[in-house]
């Protein structure tokens, strides 16, 4: 995936999502671009980052040479702990998730549909898949936000009327950041909440296989 895409870069997409986080929220960040949300400056709002492996209240990536090799986030990166952190085992960690304590999960995706369905665990033509904690998170977090490139590598839209790939959960996504802008699945079509600098509305329209509501 190249940074030489149109519109927002990876960090700017993450910034759009992170600015939604409210003080005191418990936030679970998926592997890849969602991880970048923790770099966003959101002032003095206190966020508690939860990771599937049972780490509650992790902080920034550990500086090189100062890693605790037994402390990783969901992406396997060596992170630090913020004051007030706690560690639980995997079943208790998913008890927190299924119990509805996660205010938002931010996930990557292959496709998001206008009805809030999304797909992120199996590519077309592959056997098996990579579910990880996404199905638990998507079914149970209070909010599901997605960060993804607006188009696939071969130029096809990822914002679609109905998912073609096998879904991760149905009707759960309420906010999507792409390099083209910030979108809300609106039942019929996607509402454009914010347009990325350097992107024209027509570009968004032609890159989206669902109605665009402005």
């Amino acid at each position: 995936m190249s940074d030489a895409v149109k519109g927002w870069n990876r960090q700017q997409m993450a910034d759009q999502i992170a600015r939604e986080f409210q003080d005191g929220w418990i936030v679970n960040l998926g592997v890849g671009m969602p991880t970048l949300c923790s770099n966003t400056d959101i002032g003095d709002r206190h966020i508690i980052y939860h990771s599937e492996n049972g780490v509650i209240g992790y902080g920034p990536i550990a500086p090189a040479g100062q890693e605790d090799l037994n402390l990783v986030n969901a992406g396997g990166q060596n992170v630090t702990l913020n004051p007030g952190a706690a560690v639980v085992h995997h079943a208790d960690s998913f008890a927190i998730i299924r119990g509805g304590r996660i205010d938002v999960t931010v996930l990557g995706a292959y496709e998001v549909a206008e009805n809030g369905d999304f797909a992120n665990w199996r590519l077309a033509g592959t056997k098996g898949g990579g579910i990880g904690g996404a199905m638990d998170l998507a079914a149970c977090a209070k909010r599901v936000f997605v960060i993804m490139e607006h188009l696939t590598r071969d130029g096809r839209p990822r914002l679609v009327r109905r998912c073609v790939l096998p879904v991760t959960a149905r009707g759960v996504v309420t906010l999507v950041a792409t390099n083209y802008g910030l979108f809300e699945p609106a039942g019929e079509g996607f509402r454009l909440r914010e347009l990325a600098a350097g992107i024209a509305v027509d570009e968004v329209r032609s890159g989206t296989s669902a109605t665009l509501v402005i």
Partner: protein
Amino acid sequence: MNSKQYPSFRDAVADIPDGAIIAFGGFAMPGTPFNLIKALAEQGAKHLTCIANTTGGAQQPRMPDLGLLVEQGQVRKVICAFTAATRASDVLPFTKYYEAGEVEAELVPQGTLAERLRAAGAGIPAFYTPAAVGTELAHGRETRVMNGREYLLEYALPVDYAFLRARRADAFGNLQFHRSQRNFNPVMAMAARVAIVEVDEDILPVGAIDPDQVHTPGIFIHRLVRVPPPPGGIWPVVRQERRR
């Protein structure tokens, strides 16, 4: 009371028979029993059913993991939350064998996997969860609507052996984990008939761990092996980050 300490990883896995069901702790490197896995690769048991978060091999550097056992032809089936890479550009060691039909796979959401292991240890034969409802994983399976929401029936996942890694143990098997080393290890201990632990530090005398600070009680643990310092023992290292 006899100490549960074994002199070597080889001794600790010597009796594992062909066809055993084995759960492997670990999430990324922390808590993964690399030394026990290496010993099992040398021991050679076949037709294994292996339960772990991933099929291994996705991270660099490569460590002895489930992928190694698959490559050696020791594995009949895996039960994992990841059975394929999530990026088209990644190729797991597992994939070749899976696509060739040489090994079976059951793909399970990670929280369901953890809860099925916990249920096995807790004498709960089955439970309902909202995870995977409305997805391909729920096709043809039993669901139930409660309070207006649909849930999927999931069954306990008992195992014969659990391979675990912990920071600290006393000779009775009371365990403490360090940070995210904990992950699946406590619930796999609960789910297992025989739980085998590789331990970072010297095995402590019984009673050296404060009873309030035991993460996994020794009643769940059967065998302990001290991990030698490197290079004799295998320890987590910093992951080589890839650009994405």
